[in-house]
């Protein structure tokens, strides 16, 4: 029995995407973003400016000078870094609800999402690609469909897992078989309703490379690879574990050997430690508590 009608009905109650993050997404495609444009965007949310300063002064950037203003942050960190911070702090509300279908920890999805954004950055560095806010954002948003699908996965978890185990398919393929819709499609649908830029929407929709269209944009392949590497790294793993498919052709496409993957994981380990402030954006007390976990 397909749950598709029920799932689609649940989308009708989808809350709007937070406005500041929404406006910032539109800046991703612009080659130049002025301080005035950024100020225009963040002035609607004073908490974001506070977050920008907190993150700018954290170990994540390791600056020697203390940053006191948005303007200074822009000068010292650059537009791309600032866009990442604004989008991450603007988007937290979307990730605030627990997703028990996928994560036993309340903040599991947020932590996995931030990790994937960071992993895209680390991969870009390994591949000598420009480290752009678009890549981080696509990593951050790739599993957004899980926010809505969690409820249905929770109900049918055992049936989905049985398909994974008996047929040896990925968790996403099993979702499609049991629920009639999977979390990547679901995310794509949400991205459409939220008017995300096309590239971002497609990265969400195709991040498990289950359709030929996935191969049209390196951004999609990067997000896919970052997601897989996050699963290998462990920490904040979900109930779906590592049940996703590794495609060697993606490694060949980027000329990545196993040694490169190992190096990416090594670098990610340090980035992950330094980025605890980003995890902490979601409920600060809890963030600090969890930062001490590892």
């Amino acid at each position, binding site marked *: 029995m397909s749950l598709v009608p029920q799932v689609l009905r649940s989308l009708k109650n989808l809350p709007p995407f937070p406005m500041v993050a929404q406006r910032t997404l539109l800046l991703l495609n612009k080659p130049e973003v002025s301080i005035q444009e950024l100020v225009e965007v963040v002035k609607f949310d004073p908490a974001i400016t506070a977050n920008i300063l907190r993150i700018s002064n954290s170990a994540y950037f390791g600056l020697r000078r203390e940053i006191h203003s948005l303007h200074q942050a822009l000068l010292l960190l650059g537009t791309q870094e600032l866009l990442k911070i604004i989008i991450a702090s603007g988007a937290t509300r979307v990730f605030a609800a627990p997703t028990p279908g996928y994560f036993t920890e309340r903040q599991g999805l947020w932590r996995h999402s931030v990790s994937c954004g960071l992993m895209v950055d680390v991969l870009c560095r390994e591949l000598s690609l420009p480290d752009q806010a678009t890549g981080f954002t696509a990593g951050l948003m790739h599993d957004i469909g899980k926010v809505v699908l969690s409820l249905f996965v929770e109900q049918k978890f055992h049936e989905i897992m049985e398909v994974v185990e008996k047929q040896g398919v990925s968790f996403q393929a099993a979702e499609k078989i049991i629920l009639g819709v999977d979390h990547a499609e679901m995310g794509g649908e949400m991205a459409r309703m939220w008017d995300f830029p096309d590239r971002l929407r497609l990265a969400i929709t195709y991040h498990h490379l289950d359709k030929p269209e996935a191969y049209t944009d390196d951004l999609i392949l990067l997000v896919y690879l970052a997601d897989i590497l996050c699963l290998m790294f462990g920490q904040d793993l979900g*109930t779906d574990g590592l049940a996703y498919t590794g495609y060697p052709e993606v490694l060949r496409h980027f000329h990545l050997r196993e040694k490169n993957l190992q190096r990416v994981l090594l670098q990610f380990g340090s980035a992950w430690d330094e980025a605890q402030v980003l995890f902490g954006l979601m409920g600060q007390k809890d963030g600090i508590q969890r930062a001490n976990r590892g």
Partner: protein
Amino acid sequence: MQIVVGVAEMKVSNQQEHVVITHALGSCIGVAIYDPLVKVGGLLHYMLPDSALDEEKGRENPFMFADTGIPRLFKECYKLGALKQRMLVKVAGGSQVLGGPEHFNIGRRNYAALRKIFLKNNVLIGKEDVGGTKARTMYLEIATGKVWVKIIGQNQTIIEL
């Protein structure tokens, strides 16, 4: 009291009230060793097989790699009075994504590195739960030397190793 071992960390203990835990092993491997006579145990969570990848990192943090981390795990337990011939060894983790075994196989390499080190040093693995696509959390109880593996999932299945 829970003692948490993060990624690329190790903890040893002889405090009877301690339970040493490492969360969410993916391709990484958790190694628990325990000497039942003196009730000394340690848990290592390493990420990669071989420090030749980055020797400086290996010196900085030996617990990142199998070849530098495993000897340190044993040595730290010896300092608390444990003896090699009494050590019980249990291993978990080393998961893999789906697909051919020839790529994305850091989990398997991690396991192979451990086996090689143990073979060379005449260490036997008592029990293990490795491979597959499962995410695992591992516990070592210092009072008893019991090791549990929790499979992360809806049931939160816990097995004793």
